[in-house]
């Protein structure tokens, strides 16, 4: 058993449940200004962005094209609204080809 991972999961579970549960306890008093609401709703977008860029370039630190081309293939498919798993499989297949070719 890997205790740091278990601790991480417990921590994640707690910090995720608190915002979900808080309004269940204090039903009447929670009012959010439109700006705060917008801020909260934008975080997943900016989080996904920050996780991809620029990290994707260093997937293989010695070969930036692995990340750039694989990421571009996934990006195009995602843009065309392909399901996540399709983007993942296509990006892996692309990088397999790149590694096999060179």
């Amino acid at each position, binding site marked *: 058993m890997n205790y740091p991972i278990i601790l*991480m999961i417990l921590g994640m579970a707690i910090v995720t449940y608190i915002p*979900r549960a808080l309004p269940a306890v204090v*039903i009447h008093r929670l009012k959010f200004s439109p700006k705060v*609401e917008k801020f909260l709703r934008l975080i997943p977008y*900016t*989080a996904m*962005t*920050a996780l991809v860029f620029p990290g994707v370039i260093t997937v293989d630190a010695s070969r930036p094209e692995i990340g750039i081309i694989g990421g571009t293939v996934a990006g195009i498919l995602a843009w065309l609204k392909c399901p996540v798993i399709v983007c993942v499989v296509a990006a892996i297949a692309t990088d*397999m080809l790149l590694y096999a070719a060179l």
Partner: protein
Amino acid sequence: MNKHFLSGMKASIPACLGVSVVGISIGLLAMQAGLSRFETMLMSAMVMAGSSQLMAIGMITQGTSLYAIILGTFFINLRHVVMSSSVMQRLKEATLLQRLVGAFALCDESFAIYSLSNDHSYYFLLGSNTALYVSFVLSTFIGTLMTNLLPKIVIDSFGIAIYAAFLGLLLPSVRKSVQLITLVVITALINWFLQYFIPKSWSVILAMILGAFIGVFLVDDETISTEPKEETESSGGVGSI
């Protein structure tokens, strides 16, 4: 079991498919990042918030500290407070325990389904939550099984997978808005810049907060409104789960 519960489950079937796609990706990627099957399942069963789980998996592969992962999870899931308070307004008749149970698996999908339904009973919400939760945990399990089937040559190319998953969540939900695309570019540049000064994992957290703050002024209210849209998309997106 009552008929509200069943109709809640029924209304959630299309969303269950979208959730399962995310669940399978999480199962696959978490195992690849070195989590055990038990840990992967535990994460889906206890957290039940796909984007943050993918974020955690990505951060584990980058060797991020536990604290940064938990803090990032907190911010990315903070939006649920808005959805939960909208749902709980309609559940004043329910007991506190019922509301706390209803809050557990409350996600973007169940919020949208509940808000768009004519049935605002507690058991409808519970039925919807249950269907989504079971789909999510089961599909995570299926994803963990898939890693055993992969040959080594595939695993060598797996580094790109988590990034592809992020793009798969992000791009479908920003493609229609120039403002959101601009925000994506700005956030990427902020993160790029910050990485020269602070450790990567913290620059990600700082960039997501700064980016969202800028977005408050950059993005129109309608583009990012909390009101669920009529089209319930089954293919997911950032707002998904």
